[in-house]
């Protein structure tokens, strides 16, 4: 095996690819060796997906060559890629839940008898293939009855079933798996690697990279940063290479936070007194001062989003009062809230916020437009002025203001939503998971932006599943558990340990 280990399976040279308005890949080189687990690293928009698409024949490169097993190839379709032995397994399991497990593994190459599908042989072969991955399930059941983890394994089994898989591509396979399931996946990956299969592994979780990979290639903004042996690259350097700047930015933020803290005014903008809604959130008190960032910490489902919905008027409270600048609010509706100057970035930006088919400019002016009334005309010139201002202010990476939002990367899409709310000049901004699915670089930028807004005298409610992020950005932290406010920490007195203890305390 030692000899074949050194043989290159895939060699990409000088690969460039551009999409309308975006240079997705710029002169990238990449080498994948036989029998290695190779991580492809980079933030959102770094060009990982495009690279994978070129290898799997979904997209064609503009320039550059692809060598597969020593020969130059031009891969025209996913089918062709599979035929020569390149099999991808995507983040969302791309299988058909209505078909049986066996079909999902074998359809396209199903065993036949007199031209008809031989179901028995198919089921047997599928079971065998799954046993190779240490999975023992009834393969005649429809795929949909099994958990995501199992579905992922079925997807891998399918990939392996392709006549002589030489390259297995795993695109964020662990994002919906728990620790044990991930561990099991890694076992399988190591086993396949030892069998001589080359594996490309894409993940956002850095510790997983160190746990399982042999080498890694880092991309940033469509350019190659470099290829490194995992052992020889410390995690801190990896992060620095991924975000393209040193970590001093993080400490920078602490200073901004400290500075902005002085700005917190006495007067309360938003004040909840025993505000609550049955079956949604227990009555809670909450004060939001001008220029303050209040973080909501807690696990998923602990009531964070429920509080946001109450504050923004999506849901009506059935208990307590909510005051805005001392005045009790009687009518609860998002429109009223917007009119008062409260903005809300919901958790699911695709479902609730962005319109991918519209341009950046149109998305940014959406809230203003809604606020002004739909029939009041906002001149084109004014629209562009606004759009350009926020593109600059938030450093949104787009070719022009007329670029369609769906062509932007996740982090930049998130910034467009932020821009939309900033455009109405809100006094209170409620951000529900603003950094979810966004790479580290964009994350820090969004966090810093939140603090800068506070410095300008605006207030923020900041919701995140990442404790460290809440700590870094918030002046005050409200801890939630099981739809109840259980504690509140002022700045300085909270640390990760204390908050986690508070969240966990109910269990003991």
């Amino acid at each position, binding site marked *: 095996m030692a000899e074949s280990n050194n043989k290159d399976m895939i060699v990409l040279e000088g690969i460039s690819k551009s999409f309308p308005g975006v240079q997705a890949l710029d002169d990238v080189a990449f080498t994948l060796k036989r029998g290695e687990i190779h991580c492809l690293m980079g933030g959102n928009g770094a060009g990982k997906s495009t690279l994978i698409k070129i290898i799997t024949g979904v997209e064609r490169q503009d320039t550059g060559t692809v060598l597969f097993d020593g020969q130059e190839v031009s891969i025209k379709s*996913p089918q062709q890629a599979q035929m020569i032995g390149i099999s991808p397994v995507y983040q969302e399991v791309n299988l058909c839940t*209505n*078909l049986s497990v066996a079909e999902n593994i074998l359809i396209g190459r199903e065993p036949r008898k007199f031209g*008809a599908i031989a179901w028995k042989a198919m089921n047997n072969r599928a079971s065998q293939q799954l046993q190779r991955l240490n999975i023992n399930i009834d393969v005649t059941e429809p795929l949909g009855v099994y958990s995501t983890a199992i579905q992922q394994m079925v997807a891998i089994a399918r990939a392996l079933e392709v006549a002589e898989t030489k390259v297995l591509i795993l695109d964020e396979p662990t994002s919906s798996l728990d620790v044990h399931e991930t561990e099991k996946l890694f076992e399988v990956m190591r086993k396949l690697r030892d069998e001589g299969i080359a594996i490309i592994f894409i993940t956002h979780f850095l510790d997983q990279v160190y746990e399982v990979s042999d080498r890694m290639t880092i991309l940033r903004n469509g350019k190659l940063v470099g290829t490194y042996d995992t052992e020889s690259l410390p995690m801190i350097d990896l992060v620095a290479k991924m975000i393209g700047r040193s970590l001093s930015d993080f400490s920078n933020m602490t200073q901004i936070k400290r500075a902005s803290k002085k700005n917190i005014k006495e007067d309360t903008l938003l004040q909840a007194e025993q505000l609550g809604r049955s079956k949604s959130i227990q009555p809670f008190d909450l004060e939001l001062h001008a220029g303050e960032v209040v973080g909501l910490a807690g696990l998923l489902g602990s009531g964070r989003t429920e509080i946001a919905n109450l504050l923004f008027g999506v849901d009506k409270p059935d208990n307590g009062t909510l005051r805005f600048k001392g005045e009790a609010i009687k009518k609860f509706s998002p429109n009223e809230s917007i009119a008062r100057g409260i903005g809300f970035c919901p958790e699911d930006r695709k479902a609730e916020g962005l319109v991918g088919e519209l341009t950046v400019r149109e998305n940014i002016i959406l809230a203003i437009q809604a606020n002004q009334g739909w029939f009041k005309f906002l001149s084109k010139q004014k629209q562009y002025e606004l759009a350009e201002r926020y593109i600059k202010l938030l450093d949104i990476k787009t070719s022009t203001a007329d670029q369609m939002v769906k062509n932007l990367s996740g982090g930049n899409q998130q910034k467009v939503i932020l821009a939309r709310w900033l455009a109405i000049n809100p006094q209170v901004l409620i951000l529900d998971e603003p950094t979810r699915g966004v790479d580290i670089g964009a994350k820090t930028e969004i966090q810093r932006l939140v603090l800068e807004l506070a410095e300008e005298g605006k207030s923020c409610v900041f919701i995140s599943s990442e404790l460290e992020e809440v700590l870094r950005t918030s002046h005050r932290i409200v801890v939630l558990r099981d739809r109840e406010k259980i504690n509140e920490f002022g700045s300085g007195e909270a640390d990760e340990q204390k908050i986690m203890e508070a969240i966990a305390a109910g269990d003991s």
Partner: protein
Amino acid sequence: MASQTKPLSDSVMTVKRSDTVQRLKNFLIKNGPLATTIVIFFVLYLIGSWLYPAMQKPQVVFNLFINQASLLLVSIGMTLVIIAKGIDLSVAGVIALTTAASAALLAAGMSPFIVMPLMLVMGITFGLAQGWLIHFFKVEPFIVTLMGLFFARGMAYIITLSSLTINDPVYRFLALTKVYIPFFEKVYVYIPTFVAPVMLLVTIYLSFFTQFGRTVYAIGNNEQSALLMGLPVARTKLLVYAFSGLCSAMAGIVWSVSLLSGYGGYAPGMELDAIASVVIGGTMLTGGIGTVIGTLFGVLINGTIVSILQFNGTLSSWWTRIGVGVLTLIFLGVQSLFYMRQKHS
């Protein structure tokens, strides 16, 4: 009559009882919509024959197949289209076009042995063209096939504004020859009656034992996934519409044979009857789930309602539509109930 079970197998059964019960339960949940359709058909038919004892005659059952031959044919094609998450509104138009074109060509002296294959080729081409527009130009199937309906019916009226009679001896022979069913006394069907059941068997084979059929199911569940699984999505989608076109052309031939005429106004609204039958047969409009066997019973239910009304004689024939409408709604309810169950189990 059930034969006596041996004690040995009996004891084996009891040992595995809990397992069997569980399996039966799973089977019922999985096949709930289909089972419900079949039960409703039998219940409906029993009620009918209790109200009108004449319906107990076996001939009445066979009449269902004689009278619903065209509907069954287009519904078979429609089932595959709907499983692939599409819809084909053009079917009744193709029937009308086929009858009108056949009648005109036969009147012009063309041999029926050329006319019939020609019609089948026309149906396939028509379906292929629709599939091509739908797949490669990404036009909604609803729009494409609605235009197909207008086009086909329009063409039929261009060919003839009034009903054209067919005097061809071959057609007359096919139309009037009774085929007696063995083991039943004086019970008969006509030659074209066999077309739909044969197509049904062909389609069952296609949908469960060929890559084409399984790809249809895969596309209906998730077209993107099917593509990434390396399945021939484009070809299959085209073929599904071509298959529906073929079924419609067959239905048109059967129709022109049994009425011995061609006319642009034939089979009014049959596309909707077909869709209703498919839905009553347990096929989900959301794609990916359903069987052509269910569709058979969907069509039979439709036919049974018609029969009951005919035997009654006093009720308006529009009660058929009302009955089918109510049943379809009930069915949609039953379906979502079963699928909710399935998800929870």
